[in-house]
C-alpha cells in the first residue's frame, strides 16, 4: 500500500471535501508550508497511532472503562445504599454466602474434570487416526453436537434424563432403580458437565485431528516395526508428538467450561437442585436480574474476572513455555 509523500502530490489535501470545513485550516497549514515533506514526515510518524486509535478507543471505552466501572461499583451498596461506598462489604457478603462458595467450589470441580474433558476427544481422535473400522463415519458424527446451541442440547438431555425419561426406562429394564439424574445434588453437576463435554468435544476433536496431520508417520511405523503395543504407541509416540496440541486443547476447553456453561445450567437445572449446580456466572445473573443486587453482582463479577485472569495468565505462560521448547 503506497503511503507517505507520494500520495499527497497525487491527491491534494481534502479541504474541498464535503464536511471538511472543521479540519480544513489544519490541512491548509500543513499543505501550505514550504517544507512540505517535513510536515508529511511528521504526519507519517503519527499515522500508525491514528490508525490503531479506533481499535484502542473501542477497547478502552467498551472494555476497560466498563470493567473499571464494574470494579468501582462493587465497592458501593445496593438499594437504599445505592451509590454510597461500603468498602469490602459486598465481598464479605459474597464469601459469607454458602451459595457463592458452592459456585466457587464448582469452578474447582470443573478444573478437576478438565483432564477428562481433554482425554475424551484425544482418545477418540487417536482411534480415528489409527483408522478403527468406521472411522470416517465417526469423524463426521462426533462433530454434530458442536453445531447445536446449548439450549437445544439442554432441552434434549432434560427429556432423556427426566425421572420418567428413557434413560431410567432402560436402566429399569435391567432391574436398576430409577436415578434422579438432575434432581440429586450429588449427581446433577456431573451430568451438566458431562452434557457440556458431549456437546463441545467435537471442536477439540477437530483440533486433535489437525494435530495428528502434522504427526510424523515414520515414527509410528518405526514403533510398529519394533513391536510396540497400542498402549505403548499412544504413550511414547503420539502423546509426546502432540504436546502442543494437547496444551492448546487444555486452554480452549478450560475457557469454554468457565464461560459457556450458562445456557446449559439455565435450561437443565436452573442452578438447582439445592443450589448444587451454581457457577459464578449464574450467580451473577441471579443477583443482578432476580434479586436486584447489581452492586453485589459486580463484586461477584470482579471475583470471576480475577479467576479468569489468573487462569488466563497461567495458560499464556504454559503456551509460551511450550513454544520455546519447540
Amino acid at each position, binding site marked *: *500500500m503506497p*503511503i507517505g509523500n507520494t*500520495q*499527497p502530490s497525487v*491527491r491534494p*489535501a*481534502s479541504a474541498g471535501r464535503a464536511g471538511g470545513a*472543521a*479540519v480544513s485550516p489544519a*490541512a491548509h497549514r500543513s499543505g501550505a508550508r514550504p517544507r512540505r515533506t517535513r510536515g508529511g514526515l511528521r*504526519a*507519517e510518524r503519527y*499515522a500508525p497511532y*491514528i*490508525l490503531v*486509535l*479506533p481499535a484502542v*478507543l473501542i477497547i478502552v*471505552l467498551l472494555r476497560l472503562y466498563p470493567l473499571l466501572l464494574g470494579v468501582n461499583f462493587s465497592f458501593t451498596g445496593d*438499594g*437504599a445504599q*445505592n451509590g454510597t461506598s461500603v468498602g469490602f462489604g459486598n465481598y464479605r457478603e459474597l464469601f459469607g454466602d454458602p*451459595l457463592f462458595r458452592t459456585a466457587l467450589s464448582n469452578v474447582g470441580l470443573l478444573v478437576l474434570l478438565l483432564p477428562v474433558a481433554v482425554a475424551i476427544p484425544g482418545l477418540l481422535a487417536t482411534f480415528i487416526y489409527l483408522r478403527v473400522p468406521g472411522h470416517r463415519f465417526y469423524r463426521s458424527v462426533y462433530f454434530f453436537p458442536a453445531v447445536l446451541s446449548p439450549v437445544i442440547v439442554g432441552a434434549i438431555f432434560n427429556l432423556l*434424563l*427426566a*425421572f*420418567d425419561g428413557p434413560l431410567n426406562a432402560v436402566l429399569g429394564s435391567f432391574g436398576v432403580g*430409577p436415578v*434422579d*439424574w*438432575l*434432581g*440429586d*445434588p450429588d449427581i*446433577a453437576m456431573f451430568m451438566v458437565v458431562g452434557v457440556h463435554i458431549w456437546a463441545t468435544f467435537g471442536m477439540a476433536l477437530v483440533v486433535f485431528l489437525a494435530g495428528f496431520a502434522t504427526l510424523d508417520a515414520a515414527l509410528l511405523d518405526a514403533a510398529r516395526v519394533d513391536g510396540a503395543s497400542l498402549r505403548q504407541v499412544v504413550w511414547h509416540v503420539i502423546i509426546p508428538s502432540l504436546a502442543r496440541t494437547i496444551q492448546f486443547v487444555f486452554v480452549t476447553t478450560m475457557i469454554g467450561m468457565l464461560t459457556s456453561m450458562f445456557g446449559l445450567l439455565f435450561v437443565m*437445572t*436452573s442452578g*438447582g*437442585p*439445592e*443450589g448444587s449446580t451454581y457457577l459464578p456466572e449464574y450467580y451473577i*445473573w*441471579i443477583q*443482578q*436480574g*432476580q*434479586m*436486584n443486587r*447489581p452492586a453485589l453482582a459486580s463484586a461477584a463479577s470482579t471475583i470471576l474476572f480475577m479467576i479468569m485472569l489468573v487462569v488466563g495468565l497461567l495458560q499464556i505462560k504454559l503456551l509460551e513455555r511450550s513454544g520455546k521448547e519447540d
Partner: protein
Amino acid sequence: MRQRAIWSAVLVVGLALAGCGSASDSGKSTSSDGKLVVWDWKSGEPFAKSYLDKAKADFKKKHPDVEVEFVAQPFDQYYTLLGAAIQSGKGPDVMMFNGGGQIRDRVDALVPITEYVAEDKQRLAGWEAFSKDGKIYATPVTLQGYPIYYNKTIYQKANLDPASPATTWDKFVADCDAIAKAGSKCFALGNKEGVGIQFWMSSMGSTTLTAAEYDAWIAGKRDWNSPNVKRLFQLWKETGDKKMNSDGANSTAMFNDSFAYFQSGKAAHVMGLMSDVGHWQDFNEFLTPEKLGVMKAPVVTAGTTPSLPYDGGIGYAVAKWTKDPKMAADLARSLSSADALKSFYADAGAIAADTTIDVSQAGPAVATIVGELKSGKPALHVALSSKTIDLMGRLSQQLLSGSITVDEVVKQLAASDQAG
C-alpha cells in the same frame, strides 16, 4: 489516505465522546413531551390486542394529545432489563410489575400513586401486593392466587365423591391413599425452580396458621418458630416422604411439566394458579370444565377456616423519572379500566382485578374461585422478600431429599427474613 485516516479517527472520537456524554445523563425519561413509554411483557402477545386497544381508548378520552408506546420485553429478561434502566435512571414512564417482592424491591424507582387511584380502590382488588409502607405503587390488572385444583375423574376411579373433597388433612391423606391404590399420584409437583414450596405455603397457609398468626405474617411480624409455621414445612416433607408427590419433583419444572402431569390425568391434585398459566383455562385443553374441581385447603390446625390466598398478579407502576406523574398514573389507571380488564379476562384467561366482571361462562372452577375472592387473604409467600423466597426454594428441595431438618429450615429462613 492519510486524510481519510484522520477523518475516521475524528469520527470515532466524536462518536465515542457523544456516547460518553449521554451515558452519564441521568434522571430523565426517554420519552419526549406528549409521549409515554410503557414496558411490559404482555403487549406483544396476540391476546393482548383488544385489551390494549380498550385501555388506549380510555386514556385518549383523558389525554387526547398524548401518544402511548408499548414496548414488549421478553419476560425471562424483564427484570434484568428493568434493573439496567433503573440503574441508569432512564427508562419507561409506566412499567409492568409482578406483585409482591418484585415491585417492593424496586419502589425506590417508583412514584407512589395512592392519591391518583383513590376512585379505583373499591372497584379493584389486589392492592396489597403493590403497596409498601401504606403507599400504593401500581394499579392491579390481574389477580394471582393459589387454588388447589383436582381431577374429578380420578376421584371417581378411587371411589371418592368428587362433589365433596376432603376438608381435613387426615381425611385428605386417607383419600390420597385411595387415589394411590387406584394408580394415580396425589400431587403433581414441580420443584425444580423451588417454586413448589411457595404454592404449598400459600395454599395450605390459611388452614395451618391461626387467623392471628396469618394476619401477623402478612403484616411483617413473622414468628418462624411457631409450631404451626414449622408444621407447614413438616407437612411438605411428609408429602415427600409418603410419596404423595409425582416422582422426581426436584428435577421437574413446575412450568409446565408438573401442570402437564396433572392435565394428563396422572395426578389427582395440583396447586395451581388462577391467572396467566397453570390454571383453569390451561387445564381445560384436556380436562373439560366438568372434570376440573377447585377445593378449599384441608384443615390442618383445628379451628382454622380455609380462605383463598391471592394477591394482585400483575400491575402497572409509574417511574419516578417521568415528567408528569399524574398523566402517567392516568395511563396506569386506564390499563385497569373496567372495559380493558373485561377483555383481558376473556382473551388471556386471567382472573382480572375487577371483581365486578361476570365470569359465569367460564365453568364451575372459575365460579368457585371468584366466589372465594371476597373471603380471600393475601398469600403468605408473596409477603417474603425475593432473597428469602430463593433460599426457601433451595431449602424445600433439601427437605424433599431429606438432607435437612425442619428446625434448621425455619432457623435459616428466620435469619434471612429478619435480615431483609
